[in-house]
């Protein structure tokens, strides 16, 4: 008798934090220690899971917390539909379902000694946040760290308390920006679109790996800047966030060309992304 791959495990909401008016982070604890151990034995940074509420269904998000913190997992997501509303309507102490980890991960062990550049826009910081904390929890193994993070408005920046923490660290270069018009009177960060700010900053070009996550328009205009800065499609990484149902290579929904985002991704190099049929992205 083989196990039911669609049967989720039960997680308890240990904490809940509103990042923006419609984005929330849930901290989830495993209901059994054995399940927790199994998860962390498998989990590598960049992988995703399916989070759900029985009756509403399941949705795919990255695991936004690093494998270096093994008491819980966190997910950060916007309230946009039935499942995300049901998840946000759950209170601390109540339970949700989880399946995972699934998919590929960022090959951070092959980046030891290298400099890292993170470029993120809006709600796309969560998949990089897990990498950032993973790297910071193993700080000695890596070189310089630069983070460029932008959002439409100040209110749309997620993890504001962590941005402050990273900004205060001498071993992290953090630049935050908001789109023109999105600033508040007390805003001290940059004003401008992420690609523009990235070009001005021109951070760590040598021996560097870039991780880019954001809306397609941000990625589109950031790639030429990164190319100018000397990055090749092999050392720029991103994650694809296609619609999925099963997460395990069966339901056919996330296919791009002959690839399954759930199995061949979600982490891809830009070289891999450029080889995909672009109109299907």
């Amino acid at each position: 008798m083989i196990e039911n791959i669609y049967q989720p495990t039960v997680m308890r909401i240990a904490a809940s934090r509103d990042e923006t008016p419609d984005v929330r982070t849930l901290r989830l604890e495993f209901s059994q220690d054995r399940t927790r151990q199994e998860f962390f034995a498998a989990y590598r940074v960049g992988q995703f899971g399916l989070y759900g509420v029985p009756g509403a269904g399941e949705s795919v998000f990255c695991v936004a917390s690093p494998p270096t913190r093994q008491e819980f997992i966190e997910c950060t997501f916007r309230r946009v539909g039935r499942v995300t509303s049901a998840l946000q309507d759950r209170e601390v102490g109540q339970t949700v379902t989880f399946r995972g980890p699934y998919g590929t991960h960022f090959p951070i062990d092959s980046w030891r000694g290298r400099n890292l550049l993170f470029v993120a826009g809006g709600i796309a910081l969560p998949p990089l946040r897990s990498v950032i904390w993973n790297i910071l929890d193993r700080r000695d193994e890596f070189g310089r760290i630069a983070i460029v993070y932008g959002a439409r408005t100040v209110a749309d920046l997620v993890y504001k308390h962590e941005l402050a923490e990273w900004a205060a660290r001498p071993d992290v270069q953090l630049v935050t920006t908001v789109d023109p018009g999105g600033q508040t009177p007390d805003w001290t960060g940059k004003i401008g679109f992420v690609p523009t700010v990235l070009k001005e900053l021109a951070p760590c070009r040598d021996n560097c790996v870039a991780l880019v996550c954001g809306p397609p328009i941000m990625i589109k205009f950031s790639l030429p800047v990164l190319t100018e800065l000397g990055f090749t499609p092999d050392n720029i990484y991103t994650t694809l966030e296609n619609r999925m149902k099963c997460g395990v290579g069966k339901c056919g929904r996330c296919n791009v060309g002959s690839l399954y985002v759930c199995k061949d991704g979600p982490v891809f190099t830009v070289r891999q992304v450029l080889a995909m049929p672009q109109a299907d992205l």
Partner: protein
Amino acid sequence: MKVLEARKIGELAAALSGAGWRVLLPIEDGNVVRLAPWSPGAAVRTDVVPVNSLKDALFPPSEAIGRFGLDGNDFTVKEAPVDSARTVALCVRACDTAALGLLDTIFNWDFPDAFYNARRSAVTIVSLVCTSADEQCFCTSVGGRPDATVGADAVLRPAEAGAKLIFEPLTDKGRALVSAATALLADVADATVVADKPAEVPQLFDRPAVTKWLGANFDSPLWQDWSLACLGCGACAFACPTCHCFDIQDETTRSRCVRYRNWDACALSLFTQHAGGHNPRADQAARRRQRLMHKLSYIPERFALVGCVGCGRCERACPAGLGIVEICQAIEEIQKVPAR
């Protein structure tokens, strides 16, 4: 050799049913013939290709893959039972058994699917050699044959103009049927009954050449032309023996939730629609292209299989009369034009 009187196929079903098998046969129901559970009095029709394929028996249109008990804001995860009832599918077409190669692969790579595998291992497949083909049949164009036995546990070969069926077991599962049907399967000396000639199914296009063209022509403007008549109804996918895409939806009452997987189709506009509004395949041309590409380019590339078995059901089911053959033939015509 074992020979069955063709008119006694219902008696064979009755004998197997009596021995504990759930029996599937092509059965006339209203105006259509469906591969469906046999019951006494059912009108068995082996002269046409059933509208549905063997896929339905292994991967049904809707099935429970999860169960939860609900109590206010609390829930409990319950077991979702698999269906492992011993089943025999009689008179299955060669194209349907050919489709199992892909289904077996998809439902087992990395993550074995308990629901599919329970049904798959419980089924005994008795194929029926096709002695006639209709205008939509094109198995020979995609590597199949009307008398292919790959994937079958036993085969029935029509003889004496269809009056008799030669029963030839191919596996232990197939041989296990014999003891349950001894009275119906007459032993005759070999070669005293000669099988009818299999259907002649002309090869309509060069499949490897089509696959090659597809690999290089994702951006062809022809996809627009080829999709103009597509209504986006998904009938092709639902009739297809290899289409396996599904949706997952919950149904709840106050006290319980059943999580179903339901067939889905890349022809439908919501299939890839993101919650945030973006749709990677925003128009019907992109969706029709996906169907063709998946079957004849991506699956060959990824699994070294062909995603189409040439059963012709998509064209028979399509309200607009669209099929795979016309596109493949058009592709072949394009390639005949010398490059300028």
